[in-house]
């Protein structure tokens, strides 16, 4: 493994032979179930992130950590979340690593991140349905940056729960036309999640509000279908 790690640190880049990467991936696959060796591999991979390795090599490392990464990898990956170039790949790994340590790291990075990196973090918090992030995400739903606002409302929908539902209801009148389709969809997603979690009363409130005059017909119909399905799933 040392030879392959060294190649990653010093020479590997786009357009070059990826045999060292293949060999390392073979070794990782053969080590599934062997926690001692996996720990060694994680340590070695993290050392590449901390080196002057090229972007292509660090991208490979993040891909592998997305499969075998654990809490031990979070601090090193979290450092990259605000790095304009590497933030996406840090999230690529972190989004797939289960556990609250990742959520905490993402939340901590959120205020410091900017531009696409910030949007990416919001997306990942949503995909992880991180309810601890509802409050911070709700603030971003009112952003004048429409891409960020869209990401925030979508994330709130995926997070689900009463707090996210309230946050989405509160921003409903304040978003731009471009954000509205994402907002409606997020509210429907949030309601669907509430049904799945047994909060039919909460879901019904959302569905009902989406059948009001002024809401696009497409959404009103979807809300009515949601209400029907909520009743039939009892």
């Amino acid at each position, binding site marked *: 493994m040392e030879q392959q790690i060294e190649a990653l640190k010093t020479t590997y880049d786009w*357009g070059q032979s990826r045999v060292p990467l293949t060999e390392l991936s073979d070794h990782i696959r053969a080590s599934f179930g062997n926690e001692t060796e996996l720990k060694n591999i994680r340590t070695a991979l993290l050392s590449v992130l901390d080196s002057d390795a090229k972007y292509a090599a660090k991208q490979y490392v993040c891909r592998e950590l997305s499969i075998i990464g654990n809490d031990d990898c979070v601090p090193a990956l979290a450092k990259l979340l605000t790095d304009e170039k590497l933030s996406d790949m840090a999230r690529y790994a972190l989004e797939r690593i289960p556990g609250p340590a990742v959520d905490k790291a993402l939340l901590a990075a959120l205020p410091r991140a900017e531009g696409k990196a910030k949007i990416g973090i919001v*997306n990942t918090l949503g995909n992880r349905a991180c309810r601890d992030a509802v409050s911070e995400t709700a603030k971003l739903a009112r952003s004048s940056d429409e891409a960020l606002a869209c990401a925030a409302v979508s994330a709130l929908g995926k997070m689900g729960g009463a707090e996210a539902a309230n946050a989405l209801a509160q921003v409903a009148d304040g978003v731009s036309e471009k954000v509205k389709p994402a907002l409606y969809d997020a509210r429907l997603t949030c309601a669907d999640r509430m049904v799945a979690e047994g909060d039919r009363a909460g879901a019904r409130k959302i569905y009902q509000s989406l059948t009001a005059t002024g809401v696009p017909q497409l959404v009103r119909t979807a809300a009515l279908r949601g209400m029907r399905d909520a009743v039939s799933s009892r």
Partner: protein
Amino acid sequence: MKEGKKIDRRAFLKTATGAAASVVVFPYVVLSSVLGAEAPSNKITLGCIGVGSQGTSNMNGFLSKSDARVVAVCDVDRRRLAQAKRTVDEKYGNRDCATYHDFRELIARSDIDALSLAVPDHWHAIPVIAGARAGKDMYGEKPLARTIHEGKLMVEAVERYNRIWQTGSWQRSQERFRRACELVINGRVGKVGMVEVGLPTGGGSGNPPVSPVPEGLDWDFWLGPAPWRSFIRYSDQAPHWDWRWIMDYSGGQLTDWAGHHIDIAHWGLGLDRTGPVEVEGKGEFPRDGIYDVPTAYKFTCKYANDLTMVVANDQQLPHGMGTCWYGAKGWIHVNRSGLWAEPASILDEVIGANETHLYDSRDHTQNFLDCVKTRNETVTPIDIAYRSITVGHLGEIAMLLGRKVQWDPDKLEFVSDDAATRLMSRPMRGPWHL
């Protein structure tokens, strides 16, 4: 509706949706007479997103239909966009076809009823979900999605907004494949214990160097949700077509063809809306070169009803390409070249009036247009396409992990398998999300 009263088709669809809001029941059929004659307002207006080779082929299919009108095309490659506009304008004898670089602008047009989608696999989910939210009906290419999770969200979006969806799994609109499936589903080979699915064999490549991005191509947009990388001219037409051999964008021949022959296997078995419970197999992944999808592959799927499906590249199966069902009384094999059976007399069997008759579509494009009008289900609805490609994804994941995986086809999740679960979705590059 009074007999003989003509209404604008778009207004009708809006009215129909309004009625549905009251009773959540959708219209069953619309008489063709309500469509009127050739007035553009009575045609289904289409926007074509992705106008490369397959996208152009699909677009030409719509251009040939009297009840459709292509009004806009979209591509991130200016060369292809210009060619598509020329094709549409020549067909209609005007210069009206609008062009878009960003699919979101096309989808935002309220005068477009339906979308034709033919973008690389890693781009499938985002425009479909956006299209559903905007109320568009959609004809989208197979494989349905790049990941299991993306497919699930696509199904949810299309169903949530009650959109008509046709998958480009056009074999279901071919008489030969329907005939094979009707023979199987009606027991002409007896109880099926095994089905073999033969798909094409892949190939490798070298390590071409980083190259300048071709003039007219928006490389960052083309990559979209996929991890960023420098442009590499891996073939003469790169990035087009041969993206299929790179795992960030596709699963290779396996996933490209899963939406055809695995789809047909399910159809004949009556397993359109379920999936395997266990998958195990081996793939040969190129050890070097930019192409990294499996070139040779063979995996076994066990279904709950004592059925085994073997999916492999054609060189590893006795019948090669296509779908072959083995039952207690014989076998049936179908592919694009023919239909065979053992005993051959099976092929002479008549399907009785009281037996199972499968959805009879003779024209895949027309079937979609007809369903847009009637609001009936197409021959390849999205949830069925999802089940077909999921088998491909499960095989891909089992091969990547190098071990057996257990799948719950009802819950759509792996059984106590952290690594496999991680591979169900792919984190997207910012700002893209579903």
